[in-house]
């Protein structure tokens, strides 16, 4: 298993520049062996999070006023970053197809509205989504599948692997996996780490891996920072706040800490990891607050769907209504957007 992790980590850092930076840092090299001691040593290096400070900074950034031309840009940017999501027990093929149509043309009356970042569905709806997207000109829109016994993550590794493989074979090009929060909280970091490594291996070049930390269950911001670094060390392409099934979900301080984590990771390794807040982002105001957080914490480079996504469903309608307001000068109403 040791060689496995090593070879995987090597592949991850195939960029020559990052290789150099990579070897300069002692703890990173030690991390490569994947043992409990090495993971603990790596995470111990992380400073604690000043919770009051993080909350105050997030609240301060939330007071930014974004108007007119900047707001228009922010709305289009947010639309292109949405992972349009339906994760209900009551999902049908019809609902998934309707969602895909909306993903390609969010506002049928206005072709200048950009397509969304991705469609996010349960495993068994991936094929339906892929097929429908391809048939209506949405080839460029990836389909993300939630995987590894989402949302609880309570299944054996074999089942989680099979779950992921199933999604990949159906055409998913993004995998949203959940970490084992129970293992994380009880200190079994190796289990969390190796699970991510195995799933990343399955994804290979076929799919992007997003690792869901479910911050609502991690209790403290210190844990959020640790879990973020753990996930990145194990090979995550994205770190994601929540499943959307638990409240609180993507609160501003949590997103702030995760953005700091990817910023620090970039400084250490030269690799940019993406961030995806999900759950509880329902209004344009919420979305713009997230963009301000990104710009002021990780930097402008992260303001792209490649590095920042917003997991949401109701948000899109509010963004469209605000866009209509900017376009026509009238306040729009929920009667003028689709029911999801």
């Amino acid at each position, binding site marked *: 298993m040791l060689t496995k992790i090593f070879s995987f980590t090597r592949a991850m850092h195939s960029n020559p520049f990052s290789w150099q930076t990579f070897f300069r840092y002692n703890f990173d090299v030690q991390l490569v062996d994947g043992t409990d001691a090495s993971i603990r040593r790596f995470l111990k290096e992380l400073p604690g999070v000043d919770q009051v400070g993080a909350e105050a900074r997030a609240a301060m950034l939330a007071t930014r006023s974004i108007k007119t031309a900047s707001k228009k840009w922010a709305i289009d940017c947010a639309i292109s970053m949405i992972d349009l999501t339906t994760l209900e027990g009551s999902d049908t093929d019809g609902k998934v197809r309707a969602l895909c149509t909306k993903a390609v043309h969010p506002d049928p009356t206005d072709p200048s509205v950009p397509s969304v970042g991705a469609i996010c569905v349960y495993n068994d709806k991936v094929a339906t989504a892929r097929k429908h997207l391809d048939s209506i000109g949405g080839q460029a829109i990836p389909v993300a599948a939630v995987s590894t016994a989402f949302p609880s993550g309570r299944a054996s590794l074999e089942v989680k692997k099979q779950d992921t493989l199933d999604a990949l074979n159906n055409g998913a090009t993004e995998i949203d996996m959940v970490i084992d929060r129970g293992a994380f909280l009880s200190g079994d970091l190796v289990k969390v780490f190796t699970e991510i490594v195995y799933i990343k291996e399955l994804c290979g070049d076929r799919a992007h891996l997003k690792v869901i930390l479910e911050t609502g269950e991690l209790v403290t911001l210190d844990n959020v920072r640790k879990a973020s670094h753990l996930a990145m060390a194990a090979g995550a392409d994205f770190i994601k706040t929540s499943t959307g099934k638990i409240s609180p979900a993507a609160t501003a301080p949590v997103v702030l800490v995760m953005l700091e984590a990817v910023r620090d990771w970039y400084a250490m390794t030269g690799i940019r990891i993406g961030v995806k807040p999900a759950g509880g982002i329902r209004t344009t105001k919420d979305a713009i607050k997230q963009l301000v957080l990104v710009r002021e914490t990780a930097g402008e480079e992260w303001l792209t769907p490649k590095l920042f996504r917003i997991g949401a469903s109701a948000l899109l309608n509010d963004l469209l209504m605000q866009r209509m307001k900017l376009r026509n*000068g*009238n*306040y*729009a*109403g929920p*009667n003028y957007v689709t029911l999801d």
Partner: protein
Amino acid sequence: MRIDIRKTYKLYIGGAFPRSESGRTYEIKDAKSNFIANPAQASRKDLRDAVTAARGALGGWNGATAFNRSQILYRIAEMMEARSEEFVEEIALLEGVSKVAAKKQVEQAIDAWVWYSGWCDKISTVAGSTNPISGPFYNFTVPESVGVVGIFPAHKSALLGLVQAIAPVIAGGNTAVVVASQKFPLCAVTLSEVMATSDLPGGVVNILTGITSELAPWMGSHMDVDAIDATGLSKELEKEVRVTGADNLKRIHKFSTSDTPQRILAFMEYKTVWHPIGI
């Protein structure tokens, strides 16, 4: 000697009493041009928030039984009765009329609540019908609420015009966004405090104080407002509201008469149901 504890006149949106989002206030004066108070000056965003609150409250309010709505309207009358002294003083101060005249106006306003309260569960019986048709169907027509109604009350009186505009709108199961008379906003604020203690669900009535000419065009063009009572608007503002309101086919009415069931029916639309006989 005790320092005056003065009331802050605030907006009423979604069952809460916020200041204006804009932070603005404006000055109102009594009949003799003496300063009275600084009520909140609502902005277009306060209006937008009020419409969102009204839309959110609509399902619960028009889904409530007509009898329940009737009880709540009567409760408003009871609560007003208990605070009638305050209304009398505000009317006397604002309009510069005698306390006797002011008291008469308050009594009329309270009676208007009771009168419309009685109409809640009778309006569909009186205005609805079963229709003769040649086919194996029961065919009947019932009036239903139109939705969110913007109200610009008559501003000849400080209180009565306001009550005569709000009561019929909510009696029919609509929710309301009221832009109080610019000259006489105090009674509207006190009325909102009455409503907040009358079992009226938050958001069913939202009351904004401010500059009518600033808010009216936004009400007219708002795509989520279904109808407007334009009684208190000037000719020019009414025209503007009618032009922008055409975009989503708002029903826009002006009333010259006071209490009549026609004021309820103006904000209701008819639904006709065909029900097969024998099933």
